């Protein structure tokens, strides 16, 4: 396994009464693209600022390459940071921006020049080198900022929502560029974002945060398929996962989920001892919209009748808003078919593809 570049141990940061970061621990390995993902105000930026040295944590330690940097000033930590906004120095040319850190380190002129040109090349900035950075478009500015941060060869590159303000089309290509560059130069990146899609597309691993705590750490696929709790399940994936309430019943010594008169066999999914504990209780079932099968006719005893509330066609797929009793459910279909609003439709749920959560704690039980 690759070397650990950044280690955060039991980090806590309070602002008065507010606990912005609550006992957060994680590690980032060399060459890894690690994302801190969470809604705004969840403490991800504060965590980043503590790592950068712009905030002093109240508790906990931060190690970069095994060295305790918790109390070191920012410039001695071997890190760079790209902000969401105001990332480039507007009064300097792109060249001077890229050369900023190198000049401060007192590198010889020709070496600076060589490095700047290489970076400008790989970020497609060669044509802009003489332009004042403040006059550039946002995407060029962000690329310049990125280049400036990479130029000093930081141990860890911190990115604080660098693509949020870039417009949608450019964003997509910049995501790919960033990922390519990261792999090419083997940069260790800690990426902060509230955009789950961005995190899913680029990261090797993601830490999902809420209310100052890390809820789950894992690869994008792990988190998508095996969310630890309802929050993570809901935060990842678009359209959002369906969470429906149902009763767990024991019938003929078999565990079944009761949903609108339909009984689903869940024996394979739910380990016996857990099933025993929850038998007779209400539970939450999470199921991704794309995992629902839709039928126009009832074709098996497991099909659940729903009414169609709204249909959204996005071109290559259809998003159906369904009503199951009081609950609303979203389903995604890649096959297009004619369906009228407020008509009836049948859903089939595969128990293997569901996640089951405790109704009280909202933690995953199976």
């Amino acid at each position, binding site marked *: 396994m690759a070397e650990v570049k950044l280690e955060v141990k039991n980090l806590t940061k309070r602002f008065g009464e507010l606990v912005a970061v609550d006992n957060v621990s994680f590690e980032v390995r060399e060459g890894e693209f690690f994302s801190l993902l969470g809604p705004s105000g969840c403490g991800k930026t504060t965590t980043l600022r503590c790592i950068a040295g*712009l905030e002093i944590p109240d508790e906990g330690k931060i190690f970069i390459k095994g060295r305790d940097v918790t109390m070191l000033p920012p410039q001695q930590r071997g890190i760079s940071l790209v902000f969401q906004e105001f990332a480039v120095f507007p009064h300097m040319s792109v060249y001077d921006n890229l050369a900023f850190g190198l000049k401060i380190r007192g590198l010889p002129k020709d070496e600076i020049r060589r490095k700047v040109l290489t970076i400008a090349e790989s970020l497609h900035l060669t044509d802009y080198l003489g332009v004042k950075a403040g006059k550039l478009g946002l995407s060029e500015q962000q690329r310049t900022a990125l280049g400036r941060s990479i130029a000093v060869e930081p141990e860890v590159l911190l990115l604080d929502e660098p693509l949020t303000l870039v417009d949608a089309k450019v964003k997509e290509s910049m995501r790919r560029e960033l990922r390519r560059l990261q792999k090419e130069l083997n940069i260790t990146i800690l990426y902060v974002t509230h955009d789950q899609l961005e995190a899913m597309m680029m990261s090797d691993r993601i830490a999902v945060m809420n209310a100052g705590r890390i809820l789950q750490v894992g690869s994008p696929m792990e988190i998508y398929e095996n969310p630890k709790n309802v929050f993570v399940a809901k935060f990842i994936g678009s359209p959002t996962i369906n969470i429906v309430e149902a009763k767990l019943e024991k019938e003929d010594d078999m565990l079944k989920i009761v949903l609108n008169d339909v009984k689903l066999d869940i024996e394979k999914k739910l380990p016996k001892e857990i099933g025993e504990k929850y038998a007779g209780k209400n539970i939450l079932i999470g199921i991704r919209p794309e995992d629902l099968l839709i039928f126009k006719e009832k074709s098996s005893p497991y099909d659940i009748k729903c009414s169609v509330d709204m249909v959204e066609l996005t071109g290559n797929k259809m998003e159906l808003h369904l009503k199951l009793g009081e609950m609303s459910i979203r389903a995604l279909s890649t096959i297009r078919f004619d369906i009228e609003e407020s008509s009836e439709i049948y859903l089939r749920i595969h128990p293997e593809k569901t996640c089951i959560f405790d109704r009280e704690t909202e933690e995953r039980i199976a």
Partner: protein
Amino acid sequence: MSIITRAIKYIFIGFCLLWVLIPVAWIVCLAFKPYPEWRVAYFLPKDPTLSNFVILFEPKQIIGMMGATAIVDPVTRPFINSIIVVGFSTIIAVFAGFFTAYGASRYNTPGPFSLFFTLLTRMLPPATFVTPIMVYYSNLKLLDTHLGLILLYAAVTVTYGIWILKGFIDNVPREWEEAALLEGATHSQVIFKVTLPLVKSGLVVAGLFIFLLNWAELLFALVLTNVNAVTLPVHISKYVGAVGQLYGPQAALGIISSLIPLIIGYIIQKHLVAAFTFGMVR
């Protein structure tokens, strides 16, 4: 309709311009009038002359014209004095103002209310503290010296530097400074390489404002200087005789005094546009 509104607009603008420019035009015309025409109420001189200017540069003399007499030195020395005193005091006030404003803006020190007290010297009428200062200066041997005036001017006007520049610095996002810190810059490098260049327009406005105030300052200079450090406004006031004023040479002096501000204004005019949008650096 549009022609009428337009006409009204231009008449209004014309009126405003006249209001401002007539005194200036009067001074310019007066400067070229010979003595007999000084008190006559028409603009253009009938018999234009340069004698009012020439007289200013002549060695120490008693100027006397029909009852209006004055003993005056040539204008060269006060002119150079003004440039030295106002130049240095402006530079000191702007930079001291910048660093104070930086501290106040970034660290909330010494607190917003304390910053208000920097205006104290501007709340008192200068006449109230010119006498104590004269006593201090007399003890410190600073009377009639460049240094004395420079220090006083800088101290009195630094508050404008602080207040103007604080607005500009507040508008510089901290992210820029933080990014520079992370890139390895020390705090002073951050200030000199990032913050200072970003508030360049602010430095220009504050500088111009302070320069003009000090350039026209009369009271302090009148009380605290005598021979060596006399500034232009004081020099102008010397063209007053026992019986009457020497209007012609005073007008000529007025024109000479406005040369430096005019040149400075011309050089920095491109900054002024940016500057009057007050601190919008983005």
